């Protein structure tokens, strides 16, 4: 090859190939930034530009403040492998605590590994098979078949999902301090009684099933993130409930609780931002008109958070509001993932430690229960139609 031709090729490379490769690298850098910050960019497209995009839940790596490179630790590419080899880092030394960003946050109460209805499903299978089998079959079959089916197989395979999945995605919160982690791991169960405003219930197709689902969804969220389980004790129709959140609250707190530690009322009024609870065991749950599938869920999470001592976030311009903390934008639509900010979560955990209805609330609750049961025993029958949880 002649020298003139080599010179011409070099000129061609420097004048054409190098600028083109720089532009391609710039475009590739944009793709990398877009792929690693996908959730934030899509939320900006939806909120600021009004584009019709589906916003995924924020990956845990972004929430924990990790860099963009850590969100794709599972698929190290050519450049990552070269850098790893250069820095002599072992490939298996990745942080095991950081979850895979490809898997979404636990959104449904069925998929988080706990049984949907512990008191009903496991005991019903064992006693029915055990008494019938011993006369005909040898006793070796009964112990070998019954326990492994309930212990080894997940309940979602045995029992079909009884209730639909939560219509909102749940975003994982930020990491807690070790002291609060132990508080969150300690599961506390709170018994809840719910009254349903009859004026609103007439418009709903299945108000009791809806209340059951909503409380169960809220319980799964709070159990996952705060270790607080809401055990629905009973649902009752509230006939003749006064109009307005304030009068409803005044009338609600005097009603009998029947052993429940929290008395809630699902109301048809819209959320106004005002507190709708009187003491830590009595609250009215307004609805969010913008939520079509679970209009009381975000409001229920907000009220429980207030009962636990978290403050309401009133600044719509704050970052936690824009990220969708349920202590802020209660009126958000179903597309906004459920998320709790770190400050509110810490306040709730401290409130969970001090809540009178968590463990030591039996004494105060017993007084209210006894007083309420004695006072409202006569009016109970004509005003309410009790319905146990199992019937739903």
């Amino acid at each position, binding site marked *: 090859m002649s020298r003139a031709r080599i010179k011409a090729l070099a000129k061609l490379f420097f004048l054409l190939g190098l600028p083109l490769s720089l*532009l391609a690298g*710039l*475009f*590739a*850098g*944009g*793709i*990398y*930034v*877009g*792929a*690693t*910050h*996908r959730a934030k*960019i*899509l939320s900006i*497209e939806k909120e600021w530009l009004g584009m019709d*995009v589906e916003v995924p839940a924020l990956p845990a790596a972004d929430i924990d403040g990790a860099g963009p*490179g850590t969100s*794709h630790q599972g*698929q*190290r*590419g*050519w*450049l*990552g492998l070269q850098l790893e080899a250069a820095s002599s880092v072992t490939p298996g030394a990745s942080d095991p605590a950081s979850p895979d960003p490809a898997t979404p946050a636990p959104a449904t109460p069925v998929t988080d590994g706990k049984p949907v209805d512990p008191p009903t499903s496991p005991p019903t299978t064992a006693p029915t098979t055990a008494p019938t089998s011993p006369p005909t079959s040898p006793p070796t079959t009964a112990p070998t078949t019954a326990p492994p089916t309930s212990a080894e197989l997940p309940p979602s395979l045995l029992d079909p999902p009884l209730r639909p999945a939560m219509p909102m995605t749940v975003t994982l919160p930020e990491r807690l301090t070790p002291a609060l982690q132990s508080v969150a791991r300690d599961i506390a169960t709170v018994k809840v009684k719910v009254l349903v405003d009859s004026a609103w219930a007439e418009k709903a197709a299945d108000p009791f099933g809806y209340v059951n689902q909503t409380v169960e969804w809220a319980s799964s969220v709070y159990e996952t993130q705060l270790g607080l389980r809401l055990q629905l004790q009973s649902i009752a129709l509230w006939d003749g409930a006064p109009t307005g959140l304030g009068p409803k609250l005044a009338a609600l707190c005097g009603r009998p609780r029947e052993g429940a530690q929290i008395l809630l009322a699902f109301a048809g009024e819209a959320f106004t931002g005002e507190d709708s609870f009187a003491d830590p065991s009595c609250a009215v749950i307004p609805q969010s008109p913008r939520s079509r599938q679970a209009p009381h869920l975000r409001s229920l999470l907000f009220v429980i958070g207030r009962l636990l001592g978290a403050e309401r976030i009133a600044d719509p311009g704050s970052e936690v509001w824009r990220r969708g903390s349920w202590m802020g934008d209660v009126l958000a639509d179903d597309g906004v993932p459920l998320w709790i900010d770190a400050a509110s979560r810490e306040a709730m955990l401290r409130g969970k430690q001090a809540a009178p209805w968590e463990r030591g609330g039996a004494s105060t609750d017993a007084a209210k229960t006894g007083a309420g049961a004695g006072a409202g025993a006569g009016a109970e029958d004509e005003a309410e139609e009790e319905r146990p949880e199992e019937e739903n």
Partner: protein
Amino acid sequence: MAAKETAMKATPEAEAPDPSSSRVGWVLGWVAVPGLILGAIFLGGVYVGANSEESWMTRAVMWAFG
């Protein structure tokens, strides 16, 4: 010779541009317009990476840089 003299006389009048307009032109030509073009290319990549997560371009870039 006569033509050369007229050319020598004409050049001083042509070489007196407005310094402020030349500076604006320099900023527009070397900073603003290239920055806009390069920024648009980068934002196009961001859009493709965020909205076309499963496309071959995104997968190739993530394989290379990830």
